[in-house]
């Protein structure tokens, strides 16, 4: 296996009443080693549940109905979907870590930072002594630029700011040297100046640690700042995937184009902003043709009838649109 993580034909469904609703279809992703990979999309596009599926954290009634998630650990290759609960716990936090959007609610308010860091450590390293754990915790806090780490260890979450908490979450996520970090909107709840701190920190850590990062966000600016490869999600599918420069400069899919236009027309000379008409379709209520068809300015007849396939438009650049390929999804 040449990649760290290979997701194949991932399908996620949920139950609405007695009805099965599809939230994610036909998602294929390859995360290379030492790569920062961006997943961008709007709410309900399936970007977060993809990450949750990797760690087996889908809340009921969501479930993976099809597909495989292969992961190459330090000494083994495995399908994460077929692991039992115990094996999965051994992967979580040790091999693959996750950080969430809300640092305020991701830490337990009744324990000190020290206890929560020790918990993360001792679960995977039961043999570690207290002093060794303390040393490791201090080292991690130092690495994520927490001022006064000793004092911070003894603090409770409510005594710390959002930026500090997010740095602690990152420290906890990286404390066991995972090889993959899933970051689900890690800076969305933070202010721009704090966001800049956190993004720089994550970039530095990736360089130092050989950790791959999957950055899930709705913010193209964050993608441009941090990622090498990008997948654009829309309505439970990948609509475009390429390296970051191609996404921004050789944009192929009309949706990606629209997203970019919407943000770059801000501050432009035109007072009227570029908009994508219509609304983001809610999960499962998708047409059988191209799911972006009714919002697309370049929609053709066949777009409403058939689902375009995700095909290569140039090496490493895939796009799901009939403008670039005649091929339809079977």
């Amino acid at each position, binding site marked *: 296996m040449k990649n760290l993580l290979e997701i194949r034909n991932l399908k996620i469904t949920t139950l609405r009443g007695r009805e099965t609703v599809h939230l994610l279809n036909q998602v294929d992703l390859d995360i290379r080693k030492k790569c920062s990979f961006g997943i961008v999309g709007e709410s309900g596009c399936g970007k977060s549940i993809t990450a949750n599926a990797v760690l087996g954290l889908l809340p009921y009634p969501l479930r993976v109905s099809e597909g495989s998630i292969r992961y190459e650990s330090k000494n083994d290759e495995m399908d994460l979907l077929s692991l039992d609960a115990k094996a999965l716990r051994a992967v979580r936090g040790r091999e693959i870590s996750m950080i969430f959007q809300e640092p305020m609610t991701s830490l337990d308010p009744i324990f000190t930072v020290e206890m929560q860091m020790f918990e993360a450590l001792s679960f995977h390293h039961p043999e570690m002594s207290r002093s060794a754990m303390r040393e490791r915790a201090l080292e991690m806090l130092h690495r994520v630029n927490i001022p006064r780490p000793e004092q911070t260890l003894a603090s409770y979450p409510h005594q710390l700011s959002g930026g500090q908490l997010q740095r602690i979450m990152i420290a906890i996520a990286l404390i066991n040297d995972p090889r993959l970090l899933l970051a689900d909107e890690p800076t969305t709840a933070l202010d721009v*100046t704090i*966001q*800049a701190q956190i993004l720089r920190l994550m970039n530095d850590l990736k360089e130092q640690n050989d950790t791959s990062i999957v950055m899930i966000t709705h913010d193209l600016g964050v*993608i441009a*700042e941090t990622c090498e490869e990008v997948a654009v999600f829309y309505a439970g599918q990948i609509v475009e995937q390429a390296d970051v420069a191609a996404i921004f400069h050789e944009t192929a899919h009309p949706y990606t184009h629209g997203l970019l236009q*919407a943000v770059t027309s801000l*501050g432009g000379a035109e007072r*009227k902003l570029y908009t994508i008409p219509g609304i983001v379709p809610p999960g499962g209520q998708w047409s059988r043709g191209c799911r972006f068809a009714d919002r697309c300015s370049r929609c053709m007849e066949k777009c409403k009838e058939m689902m375009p396939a995700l095909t290569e438009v140039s090496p490493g650049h895939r796009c799901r649109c009939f403008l670039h390929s005649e091929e339809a999804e079977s």
Partner: protein
Amino acid sequence: MSGQNRDLLLDVRHLQVYFPIRRGLMKKVVGHVHAVEDVSFTVRRKEVFALVGESGCGKSTTGSAILRLIEPTGGQVFFNGENLSALSEEQLRLKRRDMQFIFQNPYASLNPRMNVWQLLSEPLRVHFDLSQEELRARVGEMLTLIGMTPDQLERYPHQFSGGQKQRISIARALITHPSFVVADEPVSALDVSIQAQILNLMMELQQEMELSLVFISHDLNVVRHLSNRVGVMYLGSLMETGNTEDVYRHPVHPYTQALLSAVPSHDPLHKSKHIILEGDVPNPADPPSGCPFHTRCARCTARCREERPELREIAPDHFAACHQV
């Protein structure tokens, strides 16, 4: 004296909002959160004035305090030359016809048990004595303006998407034809592709209805796009104010400079050079002495630690509160 300038609609002078911190069984006041500290600015007719800053900087509190939705603890607000702070509650209530508020979260700001018709006709019923036909006509007119249709009148908020809900709250605020509106982060709860739709709608209506707008936002790109003038807030104080393009092109306050540089660029090939601020925003319950920004400022001097800088005019209509410029 505020009658001197006919162009002037809103004049905020030394606005101050402190929230008491209460502790213990007897709810004794043990301190104050300095949410807004000595904020002064003006808004002209048909102008969009933006208040921008990071969370907790007091921009939303300022917006609410202007309209006395939160009672200010100090300072005055003149609206059309009239001192709002001196009005009785009933006088203020009647004034609200002319000055409205758009809330951040349309999911929370619409009563879930009222349908669109009730939501939109309520402000008219409060302030005007209209017949049923007139009510219908005014509501219908507003519906067209926000791009909705009469068959949606019977529906309830939870049956709409976020963008549509925000359209309804905008309509609810504008249906009495106010001359002044405070919009508190009106798009930040919405999806990216929906934000632009709502911003366009707001700009159209602002032009059409000749509104003056105080637009509160943390999104620097949005603020640049739609405001004429801008005020940058930090820890309850105004750091810099002026013509939006001036402030964005030539920010003079070190905080404004850091804030603007922190915005991620949308071009992976030309990443912007960030000025990374160290540390965090101080606790507004225990604000630092002197300049509120001195704890994180690279150009901090002894004077900054002791003396609070006033807003000074450093170029025509461009003010900054900094000892170093």
